[in-house]
């Protein structure tokens, strides 16, 4: 036989409250895991987002580019002289300098670098002097490294060094040259009727001499989207160069090996005998490209990239390459800035969710701790009666039961850290500690207050009044404190919204929804009793006892504790806020996708002739194809220029096509009038006359109507749109030809799946791409940060609902004994069997409904309150900050959902009560 020890009391005492302790342990485990996992998931998403950003950026933006113009010619070309070796290629020398400047950290982030040298466009002739094609056909001559790695050879193979010689004629002079082997895109070769082995003379514009080339191979790009082709798209195929007089000139690139640099330059401009070979080429512009490998860059590398961007501007080594003027270009600075902005926006977006969830978890943990403490109230009283000190009571009653929570939270954190490698910041550790200690703190506080209240010395009548006044004042001060905190938080987020949106971490501001919800809960706690009393008064005059009794008990606070009400209100507020923002994200994503595409679907082409339209219409599933011309243009009014997106089409048909979507346009402008062309204008374009600058021509227009939603995106730029009838625009500007076709969603789906290569969609082969709003929306939604926000909100909503349900169950559990005693008493007075459940419903549901409504109202206001800190653009694909438009229907839905959760909790509680020990039921009368 042994005497009891403190450990015995601790360990065996846990069994008495194993339910709440298990719940707290589960919550602690989940919270620990969540708080450690969250930042790591964010880190991973941030890395993935940087990859997304780099992969989606134009090739020029995601690389370090260096260009060097042709050198100044030293004397006239020695055209008739025999071929020489030509100038030394500068590629390796400049590459060595660049590698040095880039440094090892950035060099480790790079993909395969390439370099090239290129001439001005040249006309192409057969060796006999006849043009290669009857129309204007031109090509640039380009010595390019790395071609072989980016192509599939259709015929022949990669060009090698220039070994053979030939003779061309330059202005009547014989011009002996080394024949430069070249390759060209198979599509270009087909269009020109050129085959492997063909010899072509390229006659540059200006003073350079002709060069003779021989075709050694034709190719197709392995990946046309590869940034390799972006530096010179003419390598991949024919490019349509707009002609100011209308139509286009088709140009291509003839690609030689970098080993032909000297031969090419020598043929184009043969330097005199005394000119040193390292003086550079006077006809070839050289370029070096160092693309960043999107898969290698992590957010932690952003600092190195920023430093590099600075070095590229200031490093003297780049200005000390002999005989070379180097110009560096990169969009990496802008990209990492954009990434930082997106991360900041993400932090704000997820911050509201995680802070709300953490607060909710803390509240539920505290509530569970209080329920556990209440279950041991008799034991605590007994220990105190036997002489237990407050310290011992705290250890056995409040701290002991939550030890498993601390262990569970630590286990959750460690498990998460093992499962998801990464780094854990101090903030996460502090949060885990706070969450783990909250139940102990709440229990300890409640225990001390309870013991003190029980043992308060009888103060006498006057002192009792004073105590009451102090109590009332204390509550008022506490409430005022919460309200002041909420106001301060709102003020902070509104005054520093821009700073927060740009990356300033502010947990106080992130607590806005929680603090405002807590303030609202205090209002509920004030308002509920008089409301319930009044309702009870009404119910008392009606038949039936249950409604009156339930409402009366509700008014007395039988089922109402401050903490459960606060939890319900906070839960409802978090749920509503998440639902509102999710809905807004979805809506704005759709709007942004539609504005980017211009309709549900779009076909892009070099030019769309009627036969192209007919070919598209002939495709199965395509119901309508609306030709249009879309271009970034300008509207000039009173000398001020406003960038706009010109959409020229059949306006009436376009209105019908986009009807019912976010792109819906007002009535079409009047047609067939002399004078300025009537147009519909977007925001900022005041009705009246102005000039539209299109293809270098000023066209008088009359803005007949303005629509604030008429905004479109073109070339990655969002601007007010000018919607004009295509026929009306073609009168003053005949060069405007349809290069776009708008489709409905079915047509877009049909064309997207119709052909692997869009060029195959029409016999002319001019279609360059098909895009649908759904695909754009899906692309944006599939990006790392939007996925993170959506996932966080989804998980957050589920957890918030679950935590609210738990809080409601705890509310019922906490009041169950007292309610059961009341029911037992009422049974003796004749309360019919089964009405006890109705009593619980009438007693609890008004509290839940009112709390849900208050929380939903806070959630409805939430987006407006935190609007200055919220930028949804990175998650919607919008190029401007989308508006926040809260929906009262969503708030009402959440309030109804919370009430339904209350009903579910009542059902679960009733079921649990039915399964309780028979003895409990039999003993209910003991306390009645």
């Amino acid at each position, binding site marked *: 036989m*042994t*005497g*009891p020890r403190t450990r015995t009391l601790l360990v065996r005492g846990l069994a008495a409250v194993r339910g709440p302790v298990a719940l707290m342990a589960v919550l602690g485990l989940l919270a620990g895991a969540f708080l450690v996992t969250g930042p790591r998931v964010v880190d991973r998403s941030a890395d993935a987002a940087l990859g997304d950003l780099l992969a989606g950026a134009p090739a020029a933006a995601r690389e370090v580019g260096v260009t060097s113009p042709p050198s100044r010619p030293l004397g006239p070309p020695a055209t008739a002289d025999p071929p020489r070796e030509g100038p030394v290629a500068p590629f390796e020398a400049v590459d060595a300098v660049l590698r040095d400047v880039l440094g090892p950290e950035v060099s480790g982030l790079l993909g395969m670098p390439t370099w090239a040298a290129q001439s001005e466009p040249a006309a192409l002739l057969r060796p006999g002097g006849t043009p290669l094609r009857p129309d204007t056909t031109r090509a640039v001559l380009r010595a390019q490294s790395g071609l072989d790695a980016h192509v599939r050879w259709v015929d022949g193979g990669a060009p090698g060094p220039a070994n053979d010689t030939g003779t061309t004629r330059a202005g009547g002079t014989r011009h002996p040259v080394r024949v430069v082997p070249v390759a060209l895109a198979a599509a270009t070769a087909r269009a020109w009727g050129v085959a492997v082995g063909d010899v072509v003379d390229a006659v540059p514009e200006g003073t350079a001499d002709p060069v003779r080339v021989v075709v050694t191979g034709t190719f197709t790009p392995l990946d046309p989207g590869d940034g390799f082709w972006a530096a010179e798209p003419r390598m991949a195929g024919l490019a349509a160069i707009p002609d100011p007089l209308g139509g286009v000139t088709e140009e291509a690139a003839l690609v030689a090996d970098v080993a032909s640099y000297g031969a090419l330059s020598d043929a184009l401009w043969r330097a005199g005998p005394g000119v040193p070979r390292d003086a550079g080429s006077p006809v070839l512009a050289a370029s070096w490209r160092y693309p960043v490998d999107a898969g290698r860059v992590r957010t932690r590398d952003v600092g190195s990239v920023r430093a590099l961007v600075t070095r590229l501007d200031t490093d003297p080594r780049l200005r000390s390459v002999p005989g070379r003027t180097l110009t560096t270009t990169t969009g990496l600075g802008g990209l990492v800035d954009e990434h930082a902005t997106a991360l900041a926006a993400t932090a704000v977006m997820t911050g509201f969710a995680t802070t709300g969830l953490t607060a909710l978890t803390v509240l539920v943990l505290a509530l569970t701790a209080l329920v556990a403490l209440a279950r041991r109230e008799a034991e605590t009283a007994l220990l105190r009666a*036997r002489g237990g000190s407050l310290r011992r009571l705290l250890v056995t009653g409040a701290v002991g039961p939550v030890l498993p929570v601390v262990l569970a939270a630590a286990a959750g954190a460690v498990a998460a850290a093992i499962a998801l490698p990464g780094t854990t910041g101090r903030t996460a550790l502090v949060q885990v500690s706070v969450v783990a200690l909250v139940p102990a703190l709440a229990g300890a506080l409640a225990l001390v207050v309870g013991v003190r209240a029980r043992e308060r010395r009888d103060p006498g009548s006057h002192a009792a009044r004073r105590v009451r006044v102090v109590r009332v004042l204390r509550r008022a001060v506490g409430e005022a404190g919460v309200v002041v905190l909420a106001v301060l938080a709102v003020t902070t987020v509104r005054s520093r919204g821009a700073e927060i949106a740009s990356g300033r971490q502010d947990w106080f501001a992130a607590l806005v929804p929680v603090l405002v919800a807590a303030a609202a809960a205090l209002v509920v706690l004030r308002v509920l009793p008089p409301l319930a009393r009044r309702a009870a008064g009404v119910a008392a005059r009606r038949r039936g006892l249950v409604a009156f009794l339930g409402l009366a008990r509700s008014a007395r606070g039988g089922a109402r504790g401050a903490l459960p009400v606060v939890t319900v209100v906070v839960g409802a507020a978090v749920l509503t806020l998440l639902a509102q923002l999710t809905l807004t994200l979805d809506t704005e994503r759709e709007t942004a996708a539609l504005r980017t595409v211009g309709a549900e679907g779009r076909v892009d082409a070099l030019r769309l002739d009627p036969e192209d339209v007919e070919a598209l219409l002939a495709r199965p599933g395509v119901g309508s194809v609306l030709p249009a011309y879309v271009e970034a243009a300008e509207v000039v009014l009173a000398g001020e220029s406003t960038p706009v997106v010109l959409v020229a089409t059949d306006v009436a048909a376009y209105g019908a096509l986009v009807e019912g979507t976010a792109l819906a346009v007002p009535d079409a402008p009047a047609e067939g009038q002399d004078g300025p062309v009537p147009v519909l204008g977007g925001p900022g374009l005041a009705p009246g006359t102005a000039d539209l600058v299109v293809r270098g021509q000023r066209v008088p227009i009359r803005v007949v109507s303005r629509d604030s939603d008429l905004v479109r995106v073109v070339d990655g730029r969002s601007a007010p749109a000018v919607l004009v009838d295509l026929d009306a625009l073609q009168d003053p500007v005949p060069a405007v030809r349809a290069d776009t076709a708008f489709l409905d969603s079915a047509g877009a789906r049909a064309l997207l799946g119709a052909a692997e290569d869009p060029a195959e969609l029409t016999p002319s082969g001019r279609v360059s791409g098909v895009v649908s709003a759904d695909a754009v929306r899906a692309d944006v939604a599939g990006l790392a940060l939007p996925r993170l926000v959506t996932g966080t909100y989804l998980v957050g909503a589920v957890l918030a609902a679950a935590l609210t349900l738990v809080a409601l169950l705890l509310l019922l559990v906490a009041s169950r004994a007292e309610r059961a005693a009341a029911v037992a008493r009422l049974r003796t007075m004749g309360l019919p069997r089964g009405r006890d459940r109705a009593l619980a419903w009438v007693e609890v549901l008004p509290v839940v409904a009112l709390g849900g409504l208050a929380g939903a109202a806070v959630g409805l206001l939430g987006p407006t309150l935190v609007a200055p800190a919220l930028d949804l653009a990175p998650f919607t694909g919008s190029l401007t900050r989308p508006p926040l438009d809260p929906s009262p229907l969503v708030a009402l839905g959440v309030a109804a959902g919370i009430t339904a959760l209350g009903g579910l909790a009542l059902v679960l509680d009733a079921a649990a009560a039915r399964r309780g020990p028979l003895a409990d039921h039999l003993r209910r009368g003991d306390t009645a």
Partner: protein
Amino acid sequence: MTTTTSPGAARPAAPHEEPDILCDNLVRIYRTEGIEVVALQGLDLRVERGDLVALVGASGSGKSTLLTILSGLDTPSAGVARVAGHDLSSTDRRARLRYRRHTVGFLFQQAAANLLPYLTAAENVGLPMLLAGVGRRERPRRAREVLDVLGVGDVADRRPAELSGGQQQRVALGVAVANSPRVLLADEPTGELDSRSSDEVFEAVRRANEDLGTTVLVVTHDPLVSEHVARTVGIRDGRTSTEVLRRDGEAGLVAEEYAVLDRAGRLQLPAAFTGRLGLRDRVRLDLEPDHIAVRPGHDGVDGKEGA
């Protein structure tokens, strides 16, 4: 018919030593939701050291309130409450804690409420010792002794749920006397027990009184208890109203009932007396040479006249 009172008949002679329990004009007023309830209204009580006194009274008369105050779990609103030299009106929280550990033992009515369900009988008895700082080695030995004295040594390793009601209450008594308190306060310790268990428990209480010298104040409705103690104090409306003193006479146990005259000169007449004589509202008092006569206030109303 009259009832008469004689001076000094109800009160024993004041001893020189301070009594273990002394209540003087004790008042306790509760305030619940703005309503004041006067539970004790000037109660006087004196229990000498080593006495075993029963406290009886109707429900709501203030018995439990008195015990709660005497056990140091509550404080009086006014008046004096001294137990074993501790003035319970003025002790601070720390002193009160020491008082509960060492000076009083308390026995609640519900046996289960006296015991922690997850501890064995011996551990429950050892619990007050743990709280009082008794050494770890000494606790089991002393707990065993206490349980043996109370006749429940054989169930020392059982938990409360494995004990009968009587055993539970005897173990609870062991808990109450574990630290050898000077005063034992018991609130209807036999209220939930059958007569046999009740006998066992009362016998254990008596043994604690006699063997350990503990002063015992036991609240009871049980005639088995109240009729087997030397002194039974009756409480009515928050005041001591009557006392029954029992002594061994030639014809067995002789009980004499006294009314209590408090310091303010108030006297509570037994309900049986007033009921039988129809005394209500106003009564007429006549001071006679050796007694005070109490008569109905309206002579001839019921055709009777006080003598």
